[in-house]
């Protein structure tokens, strides 16, 4: 029935709240097609109604309601995906893993890039132009230095004081918390507490 295809898109999101399914191009296209047909039928029936036959009014209203419903589902589909994509900017950083990026449609990739950009611009202006990275300091600080184990072969990390650390898989280091927190969040380092 009308609106079922659009509802399918919403169910897709509802089924997997912890991941982002591939953008359903075909589903979206089908809903838009259904909308086109509903609209055309309504045009026909409105013409008849305007010429005096009020019997078509109920059908027009039914179809029009379905159009509104389809619109709501489509916009909600896009909106909730953007919410998820937005969260990815905070958790993965400004570069997405390719397997995830693969599931975005092109306008979504563009939106992500724009979001990263205006978020960065905003963060640069904080504190009268000093700038402050809000994606950092996400947990109350406990100590200046923390012990970490490297989970992957990451390569060189240059610390603020110029020192260079080589992060090799399974190597352990004592590093400034503020500098390795992003790497912990990205799953590159593991924080060790004794």
């Amino acid at each position: 029935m009308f609106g079922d295809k659009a509802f399918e898109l919403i169910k897709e999101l509802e089924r997997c709240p912890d991941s982002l399914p591939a953008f359903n191009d075909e589903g979206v296209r089908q809903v838009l097609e259904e909308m086109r047909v509903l609209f055309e039928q309504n045009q026909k029936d409105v013409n008849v109604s305007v010429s005096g036959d009020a019997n078509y009014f109920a059908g027009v209203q039914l179809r029009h309601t379905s159009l509104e419903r389809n619109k709501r589902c489509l916009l909600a589909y896009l909106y909730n995906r953007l919410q998820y994509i937005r969260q990815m900017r905070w958790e993965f950083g400004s570069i997405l893993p390719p397997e995830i990026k693969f599931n975005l449609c092109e306008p979504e990739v563009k939106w992500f890039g724009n979001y990263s950009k205006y978020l960065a611009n905003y963060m640069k202006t904080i504190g009268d132009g000093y700038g402050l990275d809000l994606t950092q300091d996400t947990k109350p600080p406990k100590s200046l230095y923390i012990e970490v184990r490297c989970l992957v072969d990451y390569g060189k990390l240059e610390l603020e004081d110029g020192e260079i650390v080589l992060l090799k898989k399974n190597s352990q280091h004592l590093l400034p918390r503020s500098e390795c927190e992003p790497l912990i969040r990205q799953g590159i380092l593991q924080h060790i507490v004794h």
Partner: protein
Amino acid sequence: MPLLRSYTPHYFSIDDIMATQERLPCKFEVDVLRLGEYCRNQAKIIMSNTTALKVAKKSFLDPSSDDEDIKTGTTLELPYWLARALCNRNRSIVSVNIPRIYKEAYREILKAEASVVDLHRLCVYFYEFGSYLSGFNHRDSTEIGNLLVQCFKDRFRLIMDWAQNSSGDTSGSGRGAGSDPTARLDNLERGLLITGRSSWEALEAWLSQGGGRPIGPANMVVNHQKRQLANASVS
């Protein structure tokens, strides 16, 4: 850093779209012309297999099939969003009937034994759908509204107990092993249980280890890594 606001429906909210998709019996008060395919498609969908769906799609898109009408008096189960729009005070295209789970017989059961009823089975969106129904100008409306409030109050203790039983030990419910009594919760209650449980677990972890717990990777990163691992082991 989720804000964790309590559920408030809005235009884009998935739960609200889900809840407004719940169906209720409606009777057409006027003829609706050129919508016959709508009924036939429904019949086909009820048969529910992929070919029927394909046929349904075809007949919907086929303009030659729009010559059938829905006659006055036809009874159909319509989703709430449609029923609401077709049933308003000025000019009702349909009249609505309340689904039986909100009718008196069920209301009595819910009043007497709210805490043992499997709401999830009655209706996943029991409260949301119910409050929408109570918005209809219907003789049961006020009663339904009162029922929802009472039912929620009566069942809250369960949710709190389950949320604070972080060990996941939900036995002792008198049911067979493996059946989780929390499965009896409707969607709204389950949302409360999940947030309640996760904050309780955070508190328990703090009580046993203090705030010096390690900084962890971001949730999405963890989920992503898990999926990568799962994919790797499949291929």
